[in-house]
């Protein structure tokens, strides 16, 4: 008997494989009065009219494998299905005419960003060409359809399950391309099918998605050798067809590392507690079929060890034992799991302890780790860029507000998030420069692009900054906000560029291009420009061809881009920090001194280099006025100095740095962050932790572990919800309540 029980506890049991009921909900995503499909689009491209766009055309056509080809492009806005595990997806097209019989038409996953009103045979975005004329797509068809005597109108359908599942597990959603197969005879007439412009909703392209929703509002509460989880079970979405009832949840747990994104319970299978799933040996700690909304882990399956981190991942499950993973259901015909099939399931961490228990406010898996820090609209949303995806998540819960926005390049810096009340564009907006040479303006309410611009055909690795008209002085004469971004073009050490863009339209207002010469060469830029509202200036840091022979600090006129001042300080990869009164600016030079600059005259007021490899990362300022308390980092330590000046205004060399504390040891520290009044400094470490230092003493008194053996990126503070946020090299973003 004991042996039998042990077997139960150590192996997942297959209890109901004969139950082949479908997954729980099914919904057709289609443009309609209730679904504007703002991020969607469709068009076709024509090899005989290579620069003509057909984005407003109905019907769409696909024809010919050679000569006068036409390929159709379709993109669906899946934002109404933001928090689901996709089980199956079928594309349905209403065919209105056909050419020859026995011709095959294929559906391919598109691999480059395009827009409905920008795509032509030659180009995908305005004047940006496809890599191969006619569209960039995976050579292997996802599925195909043979014209075989059907009489129009009829529905042509494609199983797009693998593609759609990929879009939910780290892949980019650039839609689907329909083309005639290269096998079989040519069909110069081809097929026509209705576009989303058709007057009859039922005739428009539709993507029927079968899915399970995730639980929401997942939270953890750590205690002494216990962790309690709470969540909200899903209710059917509006417009969906309910196929099965939700039954409860299955919870996986892992100790001292994350639950693997590949650990996915198998659809059609029921599990017993204490079995494991996947090669990561993630433990099933809770199986429920009673619609429970909480679970207390107080020793199940081996108990909890205090002062260790536990990750929990919660899957919704229906009565047919389908789980909210990205895996095909047993009945779909495509039963395989996508790579990272469980990454979409909500996750949370907690550290039980007899004395210092804590938990993450939320955890989000972005499936890539560029360490781009989260941008935030405090109390509302967190925007974190990653590998060609921009995530917009609810600040209070970490639940995705919409499906991630697919863009053409990696985001490697903090997104600029602007609230509607402050923005000249009139809605919440996110500005994201990317490595594909484009700057994206994204409506953060819908995820739709406001504009996409490639101002210089060179990549961006740094954040953009936005000078807000609403906050600017009368000296700012532009009619709208200004987006400023600098380039990362390593092909030149002196001809990089800084762009000033109309924040409403993306139009280039001005460009500053470096040129050879001791005072004009502009090397790569790696940090966000700084907006100086008081002095009406934009400050940019750059490298300087390895030395001090060319500038690395630039002051520009926001109205014209005219260079007002430069300084040859040596290479700078970090952004400057302006004091609250705009009377001093602190600039960290790579491996050198933290330098205080007068932002009006540009003269150097003073500098400090405490050793340990010199200044690193942008500094933070903890006081509201002179004398300023400046916190900065070096290779392994955190420092606080008081900067004061004997005269007003401060004279060249007249500033003094006085050490307050330091160096406090932090493994591979990020940029420190503090603000006036909180009396704490937060620093991400190379030890997987966010460190909370006391502002008065520098004592590293408390920490929050994100994940062992990861590097924590630059932190952010949401002072509405009192959370500290950071991304980490495990591909996750985390939030913790402050103070620790």
């Amino acid at each position, binding site marked *: 008997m004991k042996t039998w029980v042990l077997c139960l506890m150590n192996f997942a049991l297959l209890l109901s494989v004969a139950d082949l009921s479908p997954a729980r909900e099914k919904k057709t995503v289609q443009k309609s009065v209730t679904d504007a499909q703002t991020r969607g689009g469709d068009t076709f491209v024509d090899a005989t009219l290579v620069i003509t766009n057909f984005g407003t055309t109905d019907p769409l056509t696909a024809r010919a494998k050679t000569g006068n080809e036409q390929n159709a492009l379709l993109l669906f806005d899946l934002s109404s299905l933001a928090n689901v595990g996709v089980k199956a997806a*079928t594309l349905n097209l209403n065919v209105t005419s056909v050419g020859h019989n026995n011709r*095959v038409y*294929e559906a391919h996953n598109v*691999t480059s960003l395009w827009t409905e009103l920008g795509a032509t045979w030659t180009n995908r975005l305005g004047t940006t060409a*496809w*890599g*191969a004329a006619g569209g*960039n*797509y995976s*050579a*292997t*068809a*996802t*599925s*195909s*359809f043979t014209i*075989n005597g059907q009489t129009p109108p009829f529905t*042509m*359908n494609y*199983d797009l*399950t*693998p593609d759609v599942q990929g879009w939910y597990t*780290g892949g980019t959603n650039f839609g689907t391309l329909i083309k005639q197969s*290269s*096998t*079989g005879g040519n069909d110069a007439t081809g097929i026509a099918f209705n576009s989303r412009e058709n007057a009859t909703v039922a005739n428009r392209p539709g993507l029927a998605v079968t899915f399970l929703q995730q639980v929401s509002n997942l939270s953890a509460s750590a205690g002494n050798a216990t962790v309690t989880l709470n969540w909200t079970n899903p209710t059917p979405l509006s417009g969906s067809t309910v196929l099965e009832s939700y039954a409860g949840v299955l919870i996986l747990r892992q100790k001292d590392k994350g639950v693997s994104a590949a650990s996915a319970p198998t659809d059609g299978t029921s599990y017993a507690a204490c079995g494991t799933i996947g090669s990561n040996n993630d433990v099933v700690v809770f199986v429920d079929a009673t619609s429970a909304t909480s679970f207390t882990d107080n020793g199940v399956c081996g108990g909890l060890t205090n002062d260790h981190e536990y990750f929990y991942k919660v899957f919704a499950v229906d009565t047919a034992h389908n789980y909210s993973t990205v895996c095909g259901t047993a009945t779909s015909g*495509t039963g395989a799991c996508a790579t990272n099939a469980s990454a979409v399931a909500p996750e949370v961490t907690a550290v039980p302890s007899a004395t210092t228990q804590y938990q993450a406010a939320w955890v989000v898996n972005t499936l*890539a*780790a*560029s*360490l*781009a820090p989260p941008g935030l609209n405090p109390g509302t949303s967190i925007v974190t860029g990653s*590998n*060609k995806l921009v995530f917009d998540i609810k600040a209070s819960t970490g639940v995705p507000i919409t499906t991630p926005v697919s863009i053409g*390049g*990696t985001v*490697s810096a903090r997104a600029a998030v602007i609230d509607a009340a402050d923005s000249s564009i009139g809605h919440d907006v996110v500005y994201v420069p990317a*490595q594909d040479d484009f700057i994206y303006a994204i409506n953060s309410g819908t995820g739709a692009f406001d504009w996409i611009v490639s101002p210089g055909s060179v*990549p961006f*690795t*740094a954040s953009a900054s936005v000078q807000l008209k609403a906050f600017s002085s009368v000296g700012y004469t532009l009619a709208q906000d200004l987006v400023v971004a600098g380039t*990362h073009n*390593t092909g030149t050490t002196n001809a990089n560029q800084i762009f000033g863009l109309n924040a409403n339209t993306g139009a280039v207002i001005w460009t500053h291009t470096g040129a050879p010469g001791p005072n004009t060469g502009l090397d*790569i*830029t*790696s*940090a966000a420009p700084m907006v100086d509202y008081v002095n009406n200036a934009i400050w940019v840091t750059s*490298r300087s061809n390895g030395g001090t022979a060319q500038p690395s600090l630039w002051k520009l006129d926001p109205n014209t881009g005219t260079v007002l001042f430069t300084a040859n300080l040596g290479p700078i*990869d970090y952004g400057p920090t302006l004091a609250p009164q705009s009377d001093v600016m602190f600039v960290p030079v790579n491996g050198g001194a933290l330098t205080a600059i007068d932002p009006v005259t540009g003269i150097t007021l003073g500098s400090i280099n405490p050793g340990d490899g010199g200044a*690193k990362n942008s500094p933070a300022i903890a006081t509201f006025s002179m004398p300023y308390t400046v916190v900065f980092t070096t290779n392994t330590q955190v420092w606080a100095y008081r900067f004061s000046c004997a005269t007003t205004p401060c004279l060249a060399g007249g500033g003094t740095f006085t050490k307050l504390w330091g160096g406090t040891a932090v493994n*591979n520290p*990020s940029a420190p962050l503090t603000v006036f009044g909180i009396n704490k400094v937060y620093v991400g470490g*190379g030890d997987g932790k966010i460190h909370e230092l006391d502002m008065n003493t520098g004592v590293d008194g408390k920490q929050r572990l994100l994940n062992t*053996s*990861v*590097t924590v*990126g630059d932190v952010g503070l949401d002072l509405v919800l009192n959370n500290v946020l950071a991304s980490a*090299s*495990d*591909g996750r973003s985390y939030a913790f309540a402050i103070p620790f």
Partner: protein
Amino acid sequence: MKALKNSFLLTALMVVLLATTAVLGGCATSSSSPTPVVNTAPLELAVRVCDSGTPNCPGETKFSLGSINDLQVSVDWKNMPGGTHTQEITFLLPNGVVYQSVSHGFGVTEGALGSPTVGGAMPVAGTYITQRELTGQWAVKVSLDGTVMAMQSVEFQP
């Protein structure tokens, strides 16, 4: 020479992967699958990784974060079937997590076998890779049309 060696080592893998693709690729729905075009010459590739500033990139495996600009990956293909293709280069951190990827669509003349060189780069200088010293053994994964074709290790040194 290193690139040539890589080419030989990878050829066998390519044959297996292409055969697998031919069997598994594509999901017929309401139609039968088209007959795949048989290419008698096996697809080959050689992967060369260099600092973007290196002329005539010979292929390197170790890079100093103090001097590297961008990590430039060049993939030399042989016997690439005609049609439209997408190459994706994925850069993985030492812990195996994706850092970023870069995709390029390209075309080869229908009915012919092509030998394109398709590249991609990962910015390094000034990024969090250098700022936070993300050193160690990274991996460069090359995929063609969704199928992994090659993996190569590169080391970032302090």
